[in-house]
């Protein structure tokens, strides 16, 4: 019998497909397949790390193709400074190629050649579009480096040259100029304002039209966003007023990259004092931003959320405008988002809305935000939890007694008390503050004892007592304060009496 059995076992292993032994084995070890895949990838990674050196040495075929007759740096200098137009072009092209290779472009070396002023000169050679283009590209790439590199380009006189090239009849040249100007604007407020003072905005905005190709428009949008970017100082209000209508238009575009960069522009503009927020609110784009906040595309959702988050840091009216635009129903989704960064940003916005008057708090409650808030406190990413704690504190500070009761009924106490175990003193202080606020509300209702029991039941008293030994003096005092006020004297006596 065992022999027969052995045979049938053996026959089972005859597979219908003759492919290879591996296919046969898959049956037996099915469960582990996923695991093995992962392991194999890892092994490939390991292999990869070993051979990386040899990989780097050999240039890619594409690079090889492009450097058929590479010029030396000396040859480039000579030709660029020479008077032979075709050699100038050849050398500029060579420089551009060196600057656009993937790995370690020699920015410093090129700058040290001292050819930037010549390249800037070439920008105005309207008789030779190819030369203009190559020079523009080369300068773009130099300006893409560190501040030093960008400065070399600006000091070579590139700003006016590029601005006038914006209106070049050749689209690829004007696009390249947009790109270069974007790099200069992105360097910081100084060059940004230098550009604005050179009147970059009108010709730039003139490029935006319904027929502008998407790729070009992306570059324009990005450059516009860089003109809105950076503080200390903020971009001039006049410039912002010029830019906003076009940005508002771009927010409606179909292309997600354009929408994303427009959102970022708005987020920069709202990241400031209330009067700057007001300018944005006045354009009426908040409903669109709220809509974009719910986009499935991370690259759109993130900046839209940030912009709205900035708006609700503003005045009560500005916050109300955001609420009116429908921000509250969108927030639960974002509070429950898988990405911690989104959770955090959403909780931050929520905390700012909770800091408003009780009508706004009521709207917040009505829109069902307490539940996701409690969930976030319970299970969220720690940074998001910290923001959520702030939301609770703000709500307990500004909310009516009824609103606070509603918060407690949503189950906020348990996760809130659990967070007392956090390492961060600031967070602990905010929680203790919130607890004090809860007790104040309880006092008004005559429910202090009930709250005491609730806190004890949830092991909160234990945690608060433990905080009396906390290193941070403020924490210690806040904890002591709560205990003396609500958990000493009468309550204890009462408990003793019961025993």
């Amino acid at each position, binding site marked *: 019998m065992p022999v027969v059995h052995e045979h049938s076992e053996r*026959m089972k*292993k*005859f597979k*219908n497909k003759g492919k290879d032994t591996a296919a046969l084995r898959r049956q037996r070890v099915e469960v582990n397949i996923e695991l093995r895949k992962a392991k194999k990838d890892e092994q490939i990674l390991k292999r990869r790390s070993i051979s990386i050196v040899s990989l780097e040495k050999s240039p890619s075929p*594409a690079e090889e193709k*492009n450097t058929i007759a590479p010029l030396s740096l000396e040859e480039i200098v000579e030709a660029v400074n020479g008077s032979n137009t075709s050699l100038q072009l050849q050398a500029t092209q060579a420089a551009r190629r060196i600057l656009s290779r993937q790995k370690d472009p020699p920015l410093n070396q090129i700058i040290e050649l001292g050819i930037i002023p010549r390249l800037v000169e070439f920008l105005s050679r309207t008789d030779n579009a190819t030369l203009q283009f190559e020079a523009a*590209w080369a300068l773009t790439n130099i300006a893409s480096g560190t501040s030093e590199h960008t400065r070399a380009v600006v000091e070579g006189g590139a700003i006016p040259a590029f601005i006038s090239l914006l209106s070049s009849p050749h689209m690829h040249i004007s696009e390249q100029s947009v790109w270069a100007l974007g790099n200069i604007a992105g360097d910081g407020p100084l060059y940004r304002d230098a550009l604005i003072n050179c009147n970059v905005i009108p010709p730039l905005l003139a490029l935006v039209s319904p027929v502008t190709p998407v790729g070009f428009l992306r570059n324009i949008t990005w450059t516009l966003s860089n003109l809105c970017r950076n503080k200390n100082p903020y971009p001039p209000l006049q410039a912002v007023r010029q830019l906003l209508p076009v940005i508002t238009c771009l927010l409606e575009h179909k292309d997600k990259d354009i929408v994303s960069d427009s959102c970022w522009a708005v987020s920069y503009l709202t990241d400031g004092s209330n009067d700057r927020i007001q300018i944005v609110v006045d354009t009426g784009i908040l409903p669109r931003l709220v809509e974009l906040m719910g986009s499935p595309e*991370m690259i759109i959702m993130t900046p839209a959320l940030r912009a709205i988050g900035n708006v609700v840091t503003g005045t009560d009216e500005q916050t109300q405008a955001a609420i009116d635009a429908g921000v509250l129903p969108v927030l639960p989704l974002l509070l429950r988002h898988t990405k911690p960064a989104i959770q955090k940003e959403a909780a931050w916005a929520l905390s700012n809305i909770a800091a408003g008057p009780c009508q706004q708090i009521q709207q917040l409650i009505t829109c069902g935000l307490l539940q996701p808030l409690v969930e976030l406190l319970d299970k969220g990413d720690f940074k998001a939890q910290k923001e959520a704690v702030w939301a609770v504190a703000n709500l307990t500070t500004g909310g009516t007694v009824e609103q606070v009761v509603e918060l407690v009924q949503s189950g906020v106490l348990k996760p809130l008390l659990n967070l007392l175990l956090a390492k961060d003193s600031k967070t602990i202080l905010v929680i203790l503050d919130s607890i004090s606020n809860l007790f104040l509300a309880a006092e008004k209702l005559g429910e202090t004892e009930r709250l005491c029991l609730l806190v004890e039941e949830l092991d909160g008293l234990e945690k608060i007592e433990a905080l009396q030994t906390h290193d941070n003096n403020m924490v210690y005092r806040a904890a002591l304060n709560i205990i003396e006020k609500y958990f000493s004297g009468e309550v204890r006596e009462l408990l003793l009496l019961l025993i």
Partner: protein
Amino acid sequence: MFVTDCRREFYDVIVSQRVLLLVASDVDALCACKILQALFQCDHVQYTLVPVSGWQELETAFLEHKDQFKYFVFINCGANVDLLEILQPEEDTYFFVCDSHRPINVVNVYNETQVKLLVKQGDDLDVPAYDDIFRDEEDEEELSEDESDGSEPSDKRRRFEEEVIERTARRRQRREWEARRREILFDYEQYEYHGTSSAMVMFDLAWIMSKDLNDMLWWAIVGLTDQWVQDKITQMKYVTDIGVLQRHVSRHNHRNEDEENSLSIDCMRIAFEYDLRLALYQHWSLYESLCNTSYTSANLKLWSVQGQKRLQEFLADMGLPLKQVKQKFNSMDMSLKENLREMIEESANKFGMKDLRVQTFSIHFGFKNKFLASDIVYATASLMESIEKEGPETTNFIKALDSLSRGNLDKLHQGLDLAKKQLCAIQQTVASCICTNLVISQGPFLYCSLMEGMPDVKLFSKPVSLCLLSKYLLKSFVCSTKNKRCKLLPLIMAAPMDVEQGTVIMVGIPPETESSDKKNFFGRAFEKAADSTNSRTLHNHFDMSIIELKTEDRSKFLDALISLLS
């Protein structure tokens, strides 16, 4: 990865560990195993030996032992498949692979951590370059990553060389690269062949560590001779390796070189010989050996009356009386034996057998025991595939392994007897296949199928015996056929394997030509044919050109093979 310093990266690593030895069922593997065992014995290494006859057994053995062992040594198995893929070892498990099967799987070659290949340095491997077959997937990752996260846009951006054009160019490049990769891998994996004998690799290790003994050297010789007898390597490779071993032989055996009286009961002496390639002739009669050696039998066409006549003429030419020739070689007249090799060679030349003598080695031990390396190979191989069932599956393996030790003369003699039976059976089967025209040309290859009920057919359900038969048959067929085209064809041979289950064992061998590179494309072809016809095949053997197949699927499988190779 390839081990460059066998001692440091292999032996020193395992010497302090518990080791599992997985040894394939071929004579070279046994010899390599013997050498390693001897080393292990010197250094008190704890090891467990598990014979494995195919991938299934290999895998089972691994699964059974993977919890107790972290260090595995594979002998003559494992190199030509992706071991990590089929065995899924834990990360702290290490595979040391000493295997003559080629081509070596590229993942085994380029895995830097767990798979260590013990391969003779200088072996021509032609492994594709890493960059030609592995490629980082960063390009795609970059693109998709950019899109998924919502981080702030960069404040400055560099414009790269023709971004859009480059992206499509990159995509095109990638497609081209993939096509090229397929081509490279196809070229690399297309042919199966064998590299330096594992026994020789192990002997090298022993030698490097100055732990080589004459016994080990003999096993290395037998390992190499096995490759030659099984026709696994080219004549060129054989002669080169013989040269390598000859240096070791003179180093180990120079002491008694010119002393006639050096024989003693425990002496052991290895000598280089330019001897007759007549199978087992010193333990048989010259006549029987002539009849049952493939070389002489094929060249003289002994299956025909004509051929038998030629044999008589041949013997007459040498001036050897039939009576002498037919009695045991040991009992032949000393006077006849004196210049026997030269005499036979001279006559053989006249009969078109120019290569009747080959470079080989002999071993003497005790007073009367003398063997040629090929004697040992035949004996050991026969023991391993003995069909006389006794005890568990591993009995044959252990017996064969033991027969390699000097102390086990009785087993060796038992093996010699079996080998003679095997050679006779092969010769008779070859004769009957040729006489009844069982070898048919299928176009791209010759095909011969043994029928159930033929004498000795059971013997040929074993892979090594079937391969040997195939090779002898092809040689004889090439000598017998007048069709010039057929002389250049490879041969596929099938034999009943398990009647109850209705399966056949099938082996494909490369063409029998003077300049044959011994490379075999049937492994891949079998896989493809099985794949395209959904034939029920089992690719279990370490040689991919040996498969098991359901008898009912045979015709569609062959049809697919014909159209594939035409």
